[in-house]
């Protein structure tokens, strides 16, 4: 080889080949245009076979294969909405948990695959991904637990979160149901015909693999996996028989002449899509009626959720809190409230036209002690924290006859708590479950096992709740007379005064509590017998734990597992004029100010005539004496300002006088020289 040939090859090796490799790009397609791409595409099934939609035996389309031909499905699956089971990833800031609610047993357990402190990992409660999907699939976009059986075990051989092998029976169900893959259209459909309700119905029928096609309206599905036996073998199914896998009939109106199907895809999801899972609003007596509630002020200004919560193809959705580190390494500092509205460290403050707040007259110390959301987000603090419904907890977005304010699980807001010395508004819920106390540690029992064990004790009718069952108290005439007197007790209830009605309600509650105590004693006894001396049966709820005392009656005791779980809220952001403190210092720095002295009452799943209640300052960890001292210091502050300015006016005049005299004298001295 000639020397110059060697040099040229070396040069090309060092420069040319990497450049060529970079030029190859990804095997996944992008348009890099702000316009939308018209998705006329072929459908593929889970076995990577092209689907002929006109075939009566067509398989349901697989988003993983169909969308994954052009888009990096594996990368997407590691995104925020799908990666909760990836135990190797950072858990991130604690957020809203999935609350396993079983009204029949008074159970509400905050769950999270991310192991946020105060939540329980489903594996620890023997809640399998299968159970999880059937409970929460209504608001899951697929992936994560929906594909748990398809996930590769951890490479080091040690089982990691979600790698538990399903029991044989559950494995059979997965074999029939197929995987609940990430349904891209769950968020990216621009078509109002996409139906999360259909998605949920398919999941309840265990038709996991069929859910995407049905929800998008691409196909009608006939049949239910749930109706098939565990040992059903599709190969043995008789043609046209009742026992067969669901049949997929594609909608010919969505196809063109080439049998390609049109997907009305939008790159950034519409707000209504986000709201399906992330709606939260106050309910109850003090709440503004739902029809009259405002949405987040940013949306009113024409922005969308994804403006501040964007993501890359990896679907690492920016959560938007200060200090967030994005997996891509891209700075997202300007996507927090402060970063966007003030000056962010990446110099992008003011992006998207964010106005810079004036905060006129607000001492800067407040910016160190308060998060932006403390004054601007969520329901404004009033005398009592208000009940809240969220989509994830209460199944909002699906038709229901019962969205009453006492619908379980009980969540209240705002609860202002400190995190590293900064005050944030939170939503709060109190765990409620039956558990086992061993060596001072309480472990929740599997809710279905509890139901099986206590079904005959609790005797809750189908469709009813434990609360309703225990609270169904019928007062006798003597009971009423004992409270109201013979004469008032005998008149029509509608004629009772407010005080009389409250007195009767209090009596009903006391009797319900009495009934619950009796039921609790019986239930704990039954549960204890099932333990066979392995631990102590307990019930946790309303901020307390209960066990049987020596007298056979339930006794309450304090335990860490009974502590409430709280998570920060970011929305809805209120308009400036609705911000906390907008009316002046005294809105917060006065006796009884809700931000510090609002009451937070524990919400239990069973009757409690003496619920735990705390002031906001107690939960936030403030020194009440200091708060009172501050409030006192604000007395006469206006007078202090006037007097202070007058005092400084005197000092200023003296300074000015002597400065003028001194300057004059100085020049006079120079002239003399």
């Amino acid at each position, binding site marked *: 080889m000639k020397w110059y040939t060697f040099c040229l090859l070396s040069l090309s090796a060092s420069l040319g080949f990497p450049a060529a490799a970079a030029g190859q790009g990804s095997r996944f397609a992008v348009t890099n245009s702000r316009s939308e791409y018209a998705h006329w595409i072929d459908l593929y099934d889970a076995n990577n076979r092209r689907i002929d939609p006109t075939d009566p035996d067509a398989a349901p389309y697989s988003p993983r294969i169909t969308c994954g031909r052009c888009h990096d499905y594996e990368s997407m699956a590691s995104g925020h909405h799908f990666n909760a089971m990836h135990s190797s990833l950072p858990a991130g800031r604690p957020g809203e948990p999935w609350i396993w609610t079983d009204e029949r047993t008074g159970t509400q357990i905050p769950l999270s695959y991310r192991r946020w402190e105060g939540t329980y990992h489903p594996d620890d409660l023997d809640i399998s991904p299968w159970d999880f999907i059937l409970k929460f699939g209504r608001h899951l976009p697929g992936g994560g637990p929906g594909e748990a059986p398809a996930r590769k075990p951890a490479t080091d051989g040690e089982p990691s979160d979600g790698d538990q092998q399903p029991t044989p029976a559950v494995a059979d169900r997965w074999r029939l149901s197929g995987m609940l893959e990430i349904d891209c259209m769950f968020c990216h459909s621009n078509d109002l015909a996409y139906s999360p309700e259909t998605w949920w119905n398919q999941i309840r029928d265990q038709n996991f693999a069929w859910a995407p096609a049905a929800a998008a309206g691409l196909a009608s599905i006939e049949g239910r996996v749930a109706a098939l036996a565990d040992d059903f073998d599709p190969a043995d199914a008789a043609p046209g028989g009742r026992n067969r896998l669901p049949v997929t009939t594609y909608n010919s109106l969505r196809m063109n002449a080439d049998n390609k199907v049109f997907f009305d895809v939008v790159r950034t999801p519409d707000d209504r899509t986000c709201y399906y899972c992330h709606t939260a609003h106050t309910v109850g007596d003090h709440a503004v009626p739902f029809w009259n509630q405002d949405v987040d002020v940013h949306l009113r200004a024409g922005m969308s959720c994804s403006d501040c919560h964007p993501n890359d193809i990896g679907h690492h959705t920016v959560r938007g809190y200060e200090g967030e580190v994005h997996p891509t390494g891209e700075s997202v500092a300007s996507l927090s409230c402060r970063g966007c509205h*003030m*000056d962010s460290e990446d110099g992008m403050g003011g992006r998207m036209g964010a106005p*810079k*707040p*004036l*905060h*006129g*007259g*607000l*001492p*800067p*110390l407040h*910016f*160190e*002690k308060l998060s932006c959301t403390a004054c601007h987000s969520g329901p404004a603090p009033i005398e009592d924290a208000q009940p809240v419904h969220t989509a994830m907890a209460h199944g909002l977005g699906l038709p229901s006859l019962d969205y009453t304010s006492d619908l379980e699980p009980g969540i209240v807001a705002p609860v202002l708590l400190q995190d590293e*010395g900064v005050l944030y508004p939170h939503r709060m819920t109190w765990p409620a479950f039956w558990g086992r106390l061993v060596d001072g540690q309480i472990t929740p029992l599997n809710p279905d096992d509890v139901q099986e064990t206590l079904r005959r004790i609790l005797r809750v009718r189908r469709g009813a709740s434990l609360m309703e069952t225990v609270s169904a108290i019928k007062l006798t005439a003597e009971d009423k007379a004992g409270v109201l007197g013979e004469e008032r007790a005998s008149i029509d209830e509608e004629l009772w005064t407010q005080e009389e009605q409250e007195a009767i309600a209090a009596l009903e509650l006391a009797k319900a509590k009495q009934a619950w105590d009796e039921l609790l004693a019986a239930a704990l006894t039954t549960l204890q017998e099932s333990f066979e001396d392995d631990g102590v049966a307990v019930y946790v709820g309303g901020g307390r734990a209960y066990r049987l005392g020596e007298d056979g009656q339930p006794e309450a005791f304090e335990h860490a597992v009974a502590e409430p779980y709280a998570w920060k809220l970011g929305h809805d952001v209120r308009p400036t004029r609705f911000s906390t403190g907008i009316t002046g210092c005294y809105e917060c720095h006065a006796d009884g100010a809700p931000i510090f002295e609002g009451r937070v009452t524990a919400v239990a799943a069973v009757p409690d005539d003496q619920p735990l209640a705390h002031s906001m300052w107690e939960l936030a960890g403030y*020194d009440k004496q*200091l708060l009172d*001292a*501050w409030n006192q*210091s604000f007395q006469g*502050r206006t007078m*202090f*300002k006037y*007097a*202070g*300015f007058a*005092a*400084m006016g*005197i*000092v*200023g005049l*003296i*300074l000015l006088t*002597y400065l003028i*005299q*001194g300057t*004059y*004298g*100085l020049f*006079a*001295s120079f*002239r*003399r020289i």
Partner: protein
Amino acid sequence: MFAEGNNSFVLIVAHGGEQFNQALPYLLVATALIVGVYVVLSITRPRSVEPKSKWSPWEWAVYAATLLSVGVLAATSFGAVLSVGVLNGWALLAHMVGAGMFVFVLPVLAITWCEPSRFDLRRYGQREQTGSQRFYWFPKLTFWLLLASGWVVAMTMLVSMIPWMGTDELESMLELHRWSGLLVVVAAALHVSGIVMQRFGKR
């Protein structure tokens, strides 16, 4: 009023709290060194000794009240910053109490001590001395420094209490408050040392 204002001054002083926190221990040590050097020089190399003057009880009271308020303000603010990095809680409340005292004692100090602290600057053609001979130049200089920085430190917070300024300007006021507060403490320390040296006949 100034909410949309943005100038180089604002940019220079804004967001400097961390710098202040970092610089504070060094500046306090430097102040102590300066006072120490001054005291040593005064003792080892006494110059023309100024006549001792007798202070009235009122002057004593005013001066003591000023030093007390400055001491409370310095202890609460610098103590909190040096120990926990931020001024809040009870320390902030005590700081507020000290500030209330400082705001009202400062004009009394100004009225009581301004004439004795007048510099000797004779007007054109004037032969007689115009300035007070009670103190020599060092206490006079540090008195005016104390008064001027005290005015700034009080005004920055008083102005912040009225809804004139936006966030940046309030941050700037707070930063100015920090540095001018430090200047008050430095001036007070130097003034005390000057007064003490004079009382002991070293100056």
